[in-house]
């Protein structure tokens, strides 16, 4: 029953927020709810690691993988709430775009994502993944400007279409399971499927079909090229905290769904097919995104493309398979979440101070906004996988996997793409931080909350760069044990 | 005994150097139907200069005075490399050709600095031109020596000489011919003789060496003049020792040494004659033809090296 807690707290929070009118109360309520939710997640994770797999009824289930993703979700979410409390001081009052709506929708969004992680049933999972789109669409369109509306529409339509395919994939898997002799009512339960997977060899074609559809469907949500088109728009137009949520949590959420399917498929028909597919998607995303980063003009669009790139790297990690690849991939999702949150918060500050995100209009931050400028540089170093930050470790792990499995092409592609990304970010950020500030904006006092959040991010990144805590390593191993029962862990 | 012998050789070189210069000058004069000065003229020049005082430009630093000394000292040590009468030399036993080339370079480097230190435009001009010539001369110099060294399987000058003495003149390879010509051309450039440079010119714009020493006077100039005389002699002796050492004393008996001295004198005389004839029959090259001149030397030297490898 513990599992119901992290589900109900956000719902209750959303309800309360929707009801109350006083903005100050709203913020407080939001922070309290966040704290409660964090606690609930903590309890859940803890009990997962004490008792192993938790189940509540037929439809809720939590195992090591869940706990890993819940941890990153909780962390990022807490950061986002704290940041928003300082960031959203003046919002355009309008239908669906008031402070209430913001927090209400945010909590609904949170609810849907937690539900994705907790649902035992792939059908349920699909429903909630679709629900994440619905819950966040209004947030993307929050500012209600031309761009916001356009981005929101594209987000809604493109993702819904993509997800629809995922549904078809799910059905195909269901069919395969049923044909494989699994009882229809439990034929979508992940645990059951995992157990029955080796017996599903009969539905070889069907499983492939299922995975293709799922890959395209959830891949749309992960932001694989060429289904990525919604991603830059949504990230660029949403309020910065939401951009952070989308990039750091939602993408992981979709990747989580994909991981579940990949696990079943590769257990049933061997890793060959699904991993090849992931490698293809990952490679293409990596290459295209890294190139497109060169020619971006808008800071947040740039960051969005970097998210695509990193999801590509994660996909490659999973696709390379083996303990090392998966380990690296999971670690990379975590690192990327933190680094990207950090960067989007910084971008939020930039926007607040300069009133624009057009990079050619932003100059001389080193003088006008030393802290933000420094944060931008730190973030760039972190996101390009420089030591001593975590992404260096995870990218090196994935490279190691690539080399040790003799995927030289992938390895070369990855090294090249990373260099291109480095060049692109350097090129853009250098000119923003250096140079003469054309119009030095009045240097506003930075929120204390901002410093807290940034401090936490940097701390996590550096710690993960030089030393992986034993507890966290245990969590990672637990997650891997779920996906690869056979493979022995590093 | 042997040490004394080597010391004698060095002293011989140092003391006879001005004479060689004087002889060349006299011969040239005769060839050009002039009476010419006495062959002892260089000695008197040096002595006269030593007695004069040293004029130093006000702007010059200690380098200006250091340069001639370094030049002289390096030349002395180089002189100690070359066997004259007997197949060994003071440094020649261990001092190899690389050291020889670089010692000359050291002296030249300081002379260039001294020239620039003078603060006139001529000094700079001379140094700049010297830089060009010496830069291009260094490679063929080393390669030519190396080709011989490869043949002798040793790097030390004395070693090469001893090996060569052991060979029969008539079964000599083309390598030596090539190396000899290359080295001769380099020697001309090194010692600043026609057609690369004219030691007796008085037209500043054509000078190289003379332009460098334009500021010098008194003892400093004496050192420079003497050093260049020694250099000329040493290089000639080197050519002889490396390519036609036959007649050197193989044992340290008085008779053998006497014969060796005689032979050496003959060889020297022949070489001097050739030099004089050539200098009075060839015109000085334009500045920018010197690279071509040295290019030929380099080409020959490279060929020499390649042939030594091919003809093993």
């Amino acid at each position, binding site marked *: 029953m513990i599992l119901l807690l992290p589900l109900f707290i956000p719902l209750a929070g959303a309800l309360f927020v929707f009801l109350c009118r006083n903005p100050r109360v709203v913020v407080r309520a939001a922070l309290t709810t966040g704290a409660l939710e964090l606690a609930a997640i903590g309890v859940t994770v803890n009990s997962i690691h004490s008792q192993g797999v938790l189940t509540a009824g037929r*439809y809720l289930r939590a195992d090591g993988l869940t706990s890993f993703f819940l941890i990153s979700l909780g962390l990022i979410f807490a950061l986002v709430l704290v940041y928003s409390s300082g960031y959203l001081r003046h919002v355009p009052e309008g239908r*669906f775009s008031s402070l209430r709506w913001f927090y209400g929708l945010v909590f609904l969004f949170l609810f849907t994502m937690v539900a994705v992680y907790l649902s035992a*049933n792939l*059908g*349920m999972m*699909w*429903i909630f993944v*679709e*629900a994440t789109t*619905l819950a966040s*669409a*209004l947030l993307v*369109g929050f500012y*209600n*400007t*031309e*761009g916001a*509306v*356009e*981005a*929101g*529409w*594209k987000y*809604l*339509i493109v993702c*819904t*279409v993509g997800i*629809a395919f995922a*549904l*078809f994939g799910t*059905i*195909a898997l*269901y*069919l395969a399971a*049923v*044909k494989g002799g699994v009882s*229809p*009512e439990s034929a*979508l339960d992940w645990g059951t499927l995992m157990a029955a997977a080796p017996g599903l060899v009969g*539905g070889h*074609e*069907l499983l492939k*079909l299922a995975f293709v559809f799922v890959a395209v469907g959830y891949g749309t949500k992960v932001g694989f090229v060429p289904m990525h088109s919604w991603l*830059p*728009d949504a990230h*660029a*137009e949403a309020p910065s905290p939401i951009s952070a949520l989308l990039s750091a949590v939602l993408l992981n959420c979709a990747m989580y769904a994909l991981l579940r399917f990949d696990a079943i498929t590769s257990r049933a028909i061997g890793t060959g097919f699904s991993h090849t597919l992931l490698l293809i998607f990952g490679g293409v995303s990596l290459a295209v995104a890294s190139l*497109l980063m060169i*020619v*971006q*003009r808008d800071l947040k*669009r740039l960051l969005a493309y970097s998210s695509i790139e990193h999801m590509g790297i994660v996909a490659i990690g999973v696709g390379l398979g083996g303990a090392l690849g998966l380990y690296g991939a999971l670690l990379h999702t975590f690192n990327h979440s933190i680094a990207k949150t950090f960067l989007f918060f910084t971008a939020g500050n930039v926007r607040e101070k300069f009133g624009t995100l057009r990079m050619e209009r932003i100059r001389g931050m080193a003088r006008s906004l030393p802290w933000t400028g420094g944060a931008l540089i730190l973030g760039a170093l972190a996101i390009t996988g420089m030591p001593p930050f975590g992404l260096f470790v995870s990218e090196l792990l994935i490279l190691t996997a690539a080399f040790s499995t003799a995927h030289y092409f992938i390895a070369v592609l990855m090294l090249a793409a990373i260099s291109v990304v480095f060049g692109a970010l350097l090129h853009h950020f250098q000119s923003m931080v250096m140079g003469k500030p054309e119009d030095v904006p009045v240097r506003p006092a930075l929120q204390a909350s901002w410093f807290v959040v940034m401090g936490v991010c940097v701390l996590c990144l550096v710690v993960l760069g030089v030393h992986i805590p034993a507890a966290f390593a245990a969590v990672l191993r637990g997650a891997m044990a779920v996906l690869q029962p056979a493979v022995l862990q590093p | 005994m042997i040490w004394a012998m080597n010391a004698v050789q060095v002293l011989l070189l140092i003391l006879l150097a001005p004479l060689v210069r004087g002889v060349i000058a006299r011969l040239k004069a005769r060839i050009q139907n002039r009476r010419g000065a006495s062959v002892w003229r260089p000695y008197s020049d040096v002595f006269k200069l030593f007695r004069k005082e040293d004029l130093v430009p006000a702007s010059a630093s200690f380098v200006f005075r250091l340069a001639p000394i370094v030049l002289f000292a390096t030349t002395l040590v180089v002189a100690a490399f070359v066997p004259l009468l007997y197949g060994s030399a003071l440094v020649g036993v261990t001092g190899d050709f690389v050291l020889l080339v670089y010692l000359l370079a050291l002296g030249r480097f300081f002379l260039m600095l001294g020239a620039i230190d003078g603060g006139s435009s001529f000094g700079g001009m001379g140094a700049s031109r010297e830089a060009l010539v010496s830069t291009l001369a260094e490679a063929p110099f080393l390669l030519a020596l190396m080709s011989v060294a490869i043949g002798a399987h040793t790097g030390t000058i004395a070693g090469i000489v001893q090996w060569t003495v052991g060979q029969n003149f008539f079964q000599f390879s083309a390598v030596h011919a090539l190396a000899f010509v290359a080295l001769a051309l380099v020697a001309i450039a090194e010692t600043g003789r026609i057609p690369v440079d004219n030691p007796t010119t008085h037209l500043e714009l054509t000078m190289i060496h003379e332009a460098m020493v334009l500021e010098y006077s008194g003892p400093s100039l004496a050192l420079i003049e003497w050093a260049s005389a020694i250099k000329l002699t040493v290089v000639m002796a080197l050519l002889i020792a490396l390519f036609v050492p036959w007649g050197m004393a193989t044992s340290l008996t008085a008779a053998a040494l006497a014969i060796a001295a005689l032979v050496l004198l003959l060889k020297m005389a022949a070489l001097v004659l050739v030099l004089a004839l050539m200098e009075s029959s060839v015109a000085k090259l334009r500045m920018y033809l010197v690279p071509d001149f040295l290019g030929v030397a380099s080409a020959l030297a490279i060929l020499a090296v390649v042939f030594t490898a091919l003809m093993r």
Partner: protein
Amino acid sequence: MGLFESAAARALASSGVFLFMTVLLIAAARRISTCIGLYSLQSLVITAQIAAVSRMHHSAQGFAIAAMVLTVKVAAIPYALYRIVEELKAPRDVSSSTSPSQSVFIAAGLILLSFFAVRPYVGVLGGDQAMLAAAVALVLTGGFLMVSRKKALMQVVGLLVLDNGIFLAALATTFGMPLVIEIGIVFDLLMGVFLMGLFVFRIRDTFDHLDVSKLRRLRG
């Protein structure tokens, strides 16, 4: 030619033919409201099929699903869309990038294609080939509508058709998924349509038109 005959024959043999007709008609329709009506009709046919199937299998679940589909897809959603069209007070033509006749032929082509497409899978997936083909055809035409029709609302309609297709596929292959899942899916659909309606209004308010092909501010 023989293939076309056979395709036609099979189609006639099953209720799939109605679906094909709705598909063709939607492709041909010039006015949004017509399309909505046709969509409702299409959903009705599917409902009938569900009812038939569940009658065969004597499953109460099936009837529940049928009822739900009836209320949501046949009644609620089309009604909501009608209201939106009314509210918008915007020109009601579908403003397609392909002429109606072209669209019809394309739709027909897609139907044929779907027959080809499902053939290799009939063995694997089982179920009635015509129904499968109809499902795929719905998916394809749904996609076609979304790509070719410029009006925001028509994209919604296209999406709905596509969704119908997938729903039908589920029906054709497995006799419906567990009830809870189905409910969830339909609920999602409902919410989705609601949101899209919302965005349609926003688009109208911000851009003063409903032509999604003109929403090209964000690119690169």
